């Protein structure tokens, strides 16, 4: 039986980040990953590093995380492919722009000024080939994008260098706390730790259920597609008000189009199934915003398995039923940017029982009456 101060279930970005921050705080850590690190949503997501448009509860976390992103190399010895190219959300009509304006003012009142309203002309400075009907938008200058697989691997490597033990291909079957020790039965024997962190992504619901606090999480396969290379024409990551879209051109010219459209996920086999009646919506949106995209060839599409919460924000929380257990899951298609800070919050929670950031809205207790 292997022992550590903390056993982390899940080798995605959040599990790796929690392990890294815990190791920095001096804890011995074991990470159990049923497949390989970065296999699912963490390794294949759109890579957006975005404060723009976040749920108000997430804004303080997202703002703190962005500061870590701008110093990511100090944290993990790798730039993670992060580039602060900006994020722009397009308004297709005046009503959309008014919604953005109201939101931006509310953020200001909260003390955050990163969502900057831009008019028709400024939008075209950001996006010279945007369609004529677009009236403006909102921009976050210091936002950008990174490479998800490289990022998650960098967190893993750095954690490893600080002594974290990774067990890949090791599936956690059951968790149980006995005599003050967490025991995780796995496909590769028993792992024991004083503390337990459930960062099992789309598979975290089962762990929570075993801990006596089931959650209404839905596993889904978020779809993305990518085109053949084209001459560079857009720098920032682009979204649009009221329609799901994440649009980004890479340095090699290829254009990634996503936006949270759901395919089907099979949690047993890890297989994902794409739904072209839904990807068609993303294609339509991309062509509406950038008419030149109509003739671009889509050469590949894929999906990553992710856990969605009904209220669209994650669970970052101490267990409501068990001692010395914490959750960080259900990031609902926008967890990548939060990775650096949530790991640090989890480490603070595990080692000090508290964190400086407002974590209450993410309590697992919010589902207690409903589930």
């Amino acid at each position, binding site marked *: 039986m292997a022992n550590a101060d903390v056993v982390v279930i899940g080798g995605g970005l959040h599990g790796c980040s929690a392990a890294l921050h815990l190791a920095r705080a001096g804890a011995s850590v074991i990470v159990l990953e049923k497949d390989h690190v970065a296999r699912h949503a963490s390794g294949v997501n759109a890579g957006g590093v975005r404060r723009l448009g976040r749920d108000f509860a997430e804004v303080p976390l997202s703002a703190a995380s962005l500061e870590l992103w701008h110093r990511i190399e100090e944290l993990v010895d790798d730039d993670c492919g992060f580039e602060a190219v900006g994020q722009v959300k397009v308004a297709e009509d005046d009503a959309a722009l008014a919604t953005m304006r109201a939101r931006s003012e509310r953020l200001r009142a909260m003390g955050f000024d990163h969502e900057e309203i831009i008019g028709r002309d400024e939008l075209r400075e950001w996006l010279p080939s945007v369609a004529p009907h677009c009236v403006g938008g909102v921009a976050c200058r210091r936002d950008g994008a990174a490479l998800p697989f490289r990022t998650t691997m960098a967190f893993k490597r750095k954690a490893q260098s600080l002594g974290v033990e990774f067990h890949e291909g090791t599936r956690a079957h059951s968790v149980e706390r006995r005599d003050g020790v967490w025991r995780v039965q796995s496909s590769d024997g028993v792992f024991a730790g004083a503390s337990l962190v459930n960062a099992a992504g789309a598979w975290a619901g089962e762990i929570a259920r075993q801990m006596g606090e089931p959650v209404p999480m839905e596993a889904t396969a978020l779809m993305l597609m990518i085109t053949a290379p084209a001459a560079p024409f857009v720098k920032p990551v682009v*979204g649009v008000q009221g329609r799901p879209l994440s649009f980004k051109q890479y340095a090699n010219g290829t254009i990634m189009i996503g936006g*949270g459209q759901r395919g089907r996920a099979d949690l047993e086999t890890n297989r994902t199934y794409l739904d072209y009646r*839904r990807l068609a919506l993303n*294609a339509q949106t*991309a062509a509406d915003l950038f008419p030149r995209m109509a003739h671009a060839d889509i050469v590949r599409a894929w999906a990553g398995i992710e856990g969605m919460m009904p209220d669209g924000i994650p669970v970052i929380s101490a267990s409501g039923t068990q001692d010395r257990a914490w959750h960080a899951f259900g990031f609902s298609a926008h967890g990548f940017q939060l990775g650096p800070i949530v790991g640090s919050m989890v480490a603070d929670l595990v080692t000090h029982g508290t964190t400086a950031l407002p974590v209450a809205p993410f309590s697992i207790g919010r589902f207690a009456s409903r589930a």
Partner: protein
Amino acid sequence: MSDIRDEYDVAVIGAGPAGMAAASLCARARMSTVLFDEQPAPGGQIYRGITRSPFSDRSILGPDYWAGEPVAREFAASGAQYVPRATVWSLTPEREVGVSIAGEGAQLLQAKHVVIATGALERPFPIPGWTLPGVMTAGAAQTMLKSSGIVPSGHTVLAGTGPLLWLLAWQLLRTGASIDAILDTTARESRARANAHLASFVLSPYLMKGLKLLREVRRRVRVINDVTAVEAQGEGRVQTVAYVCASSAMPVQLPVDNLLLHQGVVPNVNLAMSVGIEHRWDGEQLAFVPVLTPFGGTSVPGIYIAGDGGGIAGAQAAGWRGILSASDIVHAVHPQAAKRAAATAQAALKRFTRGRRFLDAYYRPAAQFRQPAGDTIVCRCEEVTARQIVDTVALGCPGPNQMKSFLRCGMGPCQGRLCGLTVTELIARQRNVSPQEVGYYRLRPPVKPITIAELAALPKDEAAVKAVVRI
């Protein structure tokens, strides 16, 4: 406009011998049958352009080619709907087919049964310099010959192994083209191992034909045997080919304008794998092949694979395998006729698969031509070298899908068709495990590119329009 319906009893993909035969039988049984073909006219690779050949002299392409004529004629008469220039880019386990028709856009349709008859493609032949202009596959050269009557001009060298290499040489000679040399990479050990299967090969229909063709080519072309290394060299395009053979330890150089490479064909598995159909590594054919019932049924109900896509067995066998799959499909409506067709096909298949193991063993490509080393490019789309792959395995990368994440290999427009087997074999060798354990790229639709406009024009999931996910 191709008048594509929303639903069919049978959708067949590919108009080679297997696809045409399967579609003909289903249509004759009065099942609504559509055949989608990427080419402008039926024939597939082997009978390419059979209904519109540029050659009036039938001796150029030979009798094996013209054997496709009655097959195409029967297909045309069968009542099956033929849709040319149609690319199937998606197939779901529920048999929804996504197809894109040149000049007409994309569509989704539902089929009760699907026959995948997408045939074979050439095994990657990753030698130093294989990406230089002027180097192409023998199959590509044959495509130009069959569809347009184009033959390579200047110094032409063929290199590799396998029946198609010799057939192309024979066909080129028939057009009057000259071939400077054939570098035969057939390995001595393979030839020795093949002898175990000689008895059945002697009885096969391939023997006499093959010998005659080989003799004619050898009489007219300089053939260099036991070639153990080949390299294409040149600035901007290929200018010389260097080789090493048993009779000279030092590399020999030949001037060349066209270097035509070939080392056999393997099942084209991309569409089948994207559906999730179960495949296994075939250690004789050195490729992944789908796991099939005797009728070509797959692990996904209602989806069949006929022809070389189910394992390489050649054109004649492909036609009978098409009949076999179709007989299983029509069995529900015409049990008696289906049984008769199946019995005939099974008997014929026995004949045409005889001798196959000898050919597989004899023309088994040598390891050094399947598992390149050093700076030789493996993934052409993303320019990933053999050394990078080997080094990444050493870093702990266990399989092709992780390799994609590390090196982007297999992520270009070809979707791994030109590097998949090489990557699997290199990883397997480095890890000292079987290719079966290493596995293959995870493939998903679109298996062929589709434009944004085509995709945007598809019917949309209205529920998804309303349920905007906050990301």
